[in-house]
């Protein structure tokens, strides 16, 4: 613990890099997966194909990807962009499955009613389906954020910055305090972001927190709603 306190500035600096390297791919992944995920939902085969490709992409070991990206993209091996590209692949692979699943969670009768009122497809997706998919989508985004935060540390093996450097350096110097500091910093960062995304998700979906008082009334109406049509 002593080491962490003494080198707090260094840790803070590495945390900044770490955050940048893990959250930028998440943002890029969202920008790609939300429109693509919404479009492929309409076609069963496009959805299945995407699922297969995404599953394969996610099975590539991260270290292998970190090493091959520079060869494919023509970048220097130590360029941080390699990590950003690799993690964007993972983030997109996860999110492109999460987006259609989140859209599936929207009640079909709401979508049907929106269509019958005269929403065009694009407008309905953007203003009705995506907002209503947010609770499930937020859960997916939280998984990706935490996954990225832990994967960035692997990048330190090939010399990319971030909190993972505390592991590699501590291991080389046989200095457990530094390794421990790295673990603590990464866990705190992951927990913090998980909680922050949860809160953002709640703020974006105020209607999910509204439960009216008088629970018994709800029960009678539910049972009445259950009658056959």
């Amino acid at each position, binding site marked *: 613990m002593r080491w962490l306190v003494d080198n707090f500035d260094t840790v803070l600096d590495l945390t900044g890099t770490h955050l940048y390297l893990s959250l930028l791919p998440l943002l890029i992944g969202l920008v790609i997966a939300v429109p693509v995920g919404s479009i492929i939902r309409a076609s069963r085969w496009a959805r299945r194909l995407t699922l297969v490709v995404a599953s394969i992409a996610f099975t590539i070991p991260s270290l292998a990807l970190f090493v091959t990206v520079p060869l494919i993209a023509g970048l220097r091996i130590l360029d941080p962009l390699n990590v950003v590209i690799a993690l964007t692949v993972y983030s997109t692979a996860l999110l492109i499955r999460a987006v259609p699943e989140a859209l599936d969670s929207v009640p079909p009768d709401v979508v049907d*009613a929106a*269509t019958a*009122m*005269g*929403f065009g497809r694009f407008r309905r997706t953007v203003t*009705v389906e995506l907002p209503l998919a947010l609770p499930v989508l937020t859960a997916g985004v939280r998984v990706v954020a935490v996954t990225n935060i832990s994967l960035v540390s692997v990048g330190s093996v090939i010399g990319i910055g971030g909190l993972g450097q505390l592991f590699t350096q501590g291991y080389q110097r046989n200095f457990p305090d530094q390794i421990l500091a790295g673990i603590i910093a990464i866990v705190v960062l992951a927990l913090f972001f998980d909680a922050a995304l949860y809160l953002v998700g709640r703020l974006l979906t105020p209607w999910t927190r509204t*439960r*009216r008082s008088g629970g018994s009334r709800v029960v009678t*109406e539910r049972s009445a*709603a259950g009658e056959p049509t």
Partner: protein
Amino acid sequence: MIRFDGVTKQFPDGTTAVDRLDLEIVEGAFTVFVGPSGCGKTTSMRMINRMIAPSSGRIEVDGRDVASVDPVALRRGIGYVIQSAGLLPHRTVVDNVATVPVLTGTSRRQARREAMAVLERVGLDASLATRYPAQLSGGQQQRVGVARALAADPPILLMDEPFSAVDPVVREDLQKEMLRLQADLEKTIVFVTHDIDEAVRLGDRIAVFGTGGVLQQYDTPDRVLSSPATDFVASFVGRDRGYRGLSFRDGSSVPLHPLSTTRAESATEVRLEPSEWVLVVDEADRPRGWMDVTGLEGVRAGHSIDESTAAGGSLFPEGGDLRQALDAAISSPSGIGVAVRRDGSVLGGIDATEVLAVLAAQRGTEASERSRAFTESGPAAG
């Protein structure tokens, strides 16, 4: 006007939902599609706003084939209400109601202002406007659903079993509200239900659909009840159809008799024979319940009035129909139906046998009118 011309809908699995439907829906009329599950009534309705495309045949709205109209524009001009309202859960009540005006380009501020007026029209308090749908009762949600359909003032309203998910008391309120609104607005309404009672209560015209999507009868409610076109219609409208038919007969000639009533506070002073009943009324003369000898003993022993009276039967409102009159009499524990004025105060008592006598008299008059019409038109036609 909406016109179905030889419309058939077959689903990919081979089932025929609607079979060669020819139907003209009159402008400004309240038309009810009724039938058992899977009879094609909802499918038929959803073909009007192109939510479902027919396999063959054509549907015209105001003389135009709907297949030639842009579906989004078509739907914006047709109000739509479904079971459990189908409200957008992430938008407040006022924004839900403002949905279609905003879609058609009205500014949000203007659309909200108009939405508030529509909410008032369907009997919703302005304080509910900023709530989310989940914060409303089922009945309130359904009213918001109706308000949303009316907001853009479309000439046509499609309603798919809108009131079947609420309890019977709320349903009756909503039905009355719907009739009141329709009297003002005179929209062309297509209303789908599986409940023949609801169909009879609301419809100017009823289309009865049978299994396999075949239209069985398209007629006024009293004609559907009094002369079913097919065995299917006869069995669908049910064994109670004679009784239901009474609701189209005027009950104003039912004789009313004076009732023995008492206020709750003076109930102990009443004297009753073993088979006698007395109607307990409140300070405004409105009925509270019937009390017999046993109940009277209970009151004298110190029990409350509510514990000691049998709940009253249904009430016959002034100007009601024969069905209400007969039901008031046979649902009353004393066998005497209670007629009430508009303010709810007791008007008099009804005897069931006398209700049936009124029915017999009305039928007699109708029969003689028919035979006179026959003899008058007979020679001319010959």
